[in-house]
């Protein structure tokens, strides 16, 4: 293959795989937004908390599966606690108040995570060798492929859950029309609890994969900044949208950095994704796959 072409393919593939990682974080947001209209900024803190708990348990000598189950249990408790203590008392408040409350929650979780587990930087080894694979001159990261597979599996499980379980169906009913769902006797609090548990689990998966990439440390909570443009583009309320938008954002920002960066100065990745998402939204205000809603006029 022509080296320039193979380089291009490499950038695109690398971008797509990074995009999957962004989508992974974005899904946690979508789950909660869909049912309760909250942009849960504490998602990043939950990612940090999950990864830090897991890695500390492993360092204490707990075997891998045991640590995983223990962390899962902790995340379920955290999700439930946030829902009970913060979201439920704030029901019917304007979204911006809820958003601020989740920022408060983020402070609490970040503080607690560091207080309990310390501020040390940890390495997290998931046992995946990250020497690159080569396909016709194009390097592909083994770890990123694994991460994409995990993300795919998670989306598949979530889809099955929403399609075939009672709670899942109720979840969709609430997302479609909360009032109608309420009037046919669906118990909203139970569904909210389920959703917060689910987003806790998503946070754990994202925390493990991102933790293995970055090391487990405070900066892990900053991965939400990568997820936000994905959310704007894909719609806050669509899991499929998050995946597609993640892929687009990942590829677009890598291409922009590599090919546009040299002309306008490097380091543009921080904002180019937002600008790209905005440009697309101006053409198509309802996002890629999001519901058409008054929120976006």
């Amino acid at each position: 293959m022509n080296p320039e072409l193979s380089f291009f393919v490499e950038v695109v593939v690398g971008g797509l795989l990074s995009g999957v990682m962004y989508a992974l974080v974005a899904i946690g947001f979508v789950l909660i937004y869909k049912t309760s209209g909250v942009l849960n900024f504490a998602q990043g803190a939950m990612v940090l908390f999950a990864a830090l708990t897991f890695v500390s348990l492993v360092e204490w000598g707990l075997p891998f599966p045991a640590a995983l189950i223990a962390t899962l249990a902790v995340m379920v408790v955290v999700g439930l606690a946030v829902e009970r203590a913060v979201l439920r008392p704030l029901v019917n408040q304007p979204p911006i108040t809820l958003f601020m409350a989740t920022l408060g929650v983020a402070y609490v979780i970040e503080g607690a995570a560091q207080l309990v587990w310390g501020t040390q930087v940890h390495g997290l080894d998931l046992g995946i060798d990250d020497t690159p694979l080569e396909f016709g001159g194009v390097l592909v990261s083994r770890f990123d492929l694994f991460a994409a597979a995990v993300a795919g599996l998670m989306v598949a499980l979530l889809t099955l859950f929403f399609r075939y379980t009672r709670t899942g169906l109720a979840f969709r009913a609430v997302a479609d029309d909360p009032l109608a769902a309420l009037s046919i006797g669906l118990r909203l609090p139970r569904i909210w609890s389920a959703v917060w548990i689910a987003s806790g689990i998503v946070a754990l998966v994202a925390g493990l994969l991102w933790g293995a990439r970055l090391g487990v440390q405070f900066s892990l909570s900053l991965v939400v900044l990568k997820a936000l443009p994905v959310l704007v583009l894909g719609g806050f309320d669509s899991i499929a949208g998050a995946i597609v938008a993640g892929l687009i954002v990942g590829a677009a920002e890598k291409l922009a950095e590599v090919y546009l960066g040299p002309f306008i100065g490097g380091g543009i990745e921080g904002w180019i994704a937002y600008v790209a998402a905005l440009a697309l939204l101006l053409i198509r205000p309802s996002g890629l796959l999001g519901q058409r809603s008054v929120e976006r006029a």
Partner: protein
Amino acid sequence: MSTALDLPAKPRDLSGPVGIALLLALAFGLVPLTASDYLFEAILTPFLALALAGLGLNLLTGYAGLLSLGSSAFMAVGAYAAFNLSLRVPGLPLPVSILGAGLVAAAAGLVAGLPSLRLKGFYLAVSTLAAQFFVAWALNRIGWLSNDSPSGVINAPRLVVAGQSFEDARGRYLFSLAIVSFLTFATGRLVNSPTGRNLVAIRDSEVAARIVGVKVARTKLLAFALSCFIVGIAGVLWAFAYLRTVEPAGFNLDRSFQILFIVIIGGLGTLRGAFLGAGFIVVLPLVLSRLGAALLGDSFDSGTLEMVQRIVLGALIVIVLIREPAGLSALLHRTARRLRLSA
């Protein structure tokens, strides 16, 4: 579905002209005579700068109902604009360069406000992050803006107005106080003017506003421009009067959130909310950590203290939101009324 920012009607103003006069007498008269350097430098000056930023954001979020997560970017624009104006236009009086900085920030706000014509709620909020990150990048990337300083950090010019120096702790406080009081009065006039009522009309119902003849697009952009003008000047105070240095990293997303906290905790759509909120956000952490240090002693691990403090602060924010969703301003209003009733 309700709009993103349903707010209670503005409580009747209880701070009458007498109250305001007393407050000003206290702030201009008594405080400068009695306060210590620490109070000026570490508490009052940053409090004023952040309260002003809160005031600006409140105009946008509280009055016009448009959510922005990029306030600190406009503080940065203001600070850098003032620095460059003072640097490149020799002999320009400081008040003029501060005014110019406000105008530059307003222009930046106008551009950043364009998405508001099509987006609402959180979509708009997240889109303002584009401004947040773009400004940080541009300030870092374009060396000219920081006068090609090798490290990109710039020193603020001296605070001298008409030969009068405001360089000491008290001077910095009075300088900030004068600007903040002036802009607060101006904003007070504004929100009670037809323009201010147009902003509120858009917040409450865009459709209704349009029916009664409010030019929605123009008013939204005006809200962004006015808000960013004030926020930009707050940035100048933050950099020149408080820190005395400017670096892009100081105007990060955390600062934007902090300003949003100030507005929401203080009370959306009220002028005093910004001051109450800034008091809460600036003073409370300091009180908490002093309290912690006093209880646990000097040698106590400052990190543990800080984390406990972070947890307490987060919890307090949540508690305030739960107990008083309309903010401290509403709490104050109610308390005052109760006092009056019992009296």
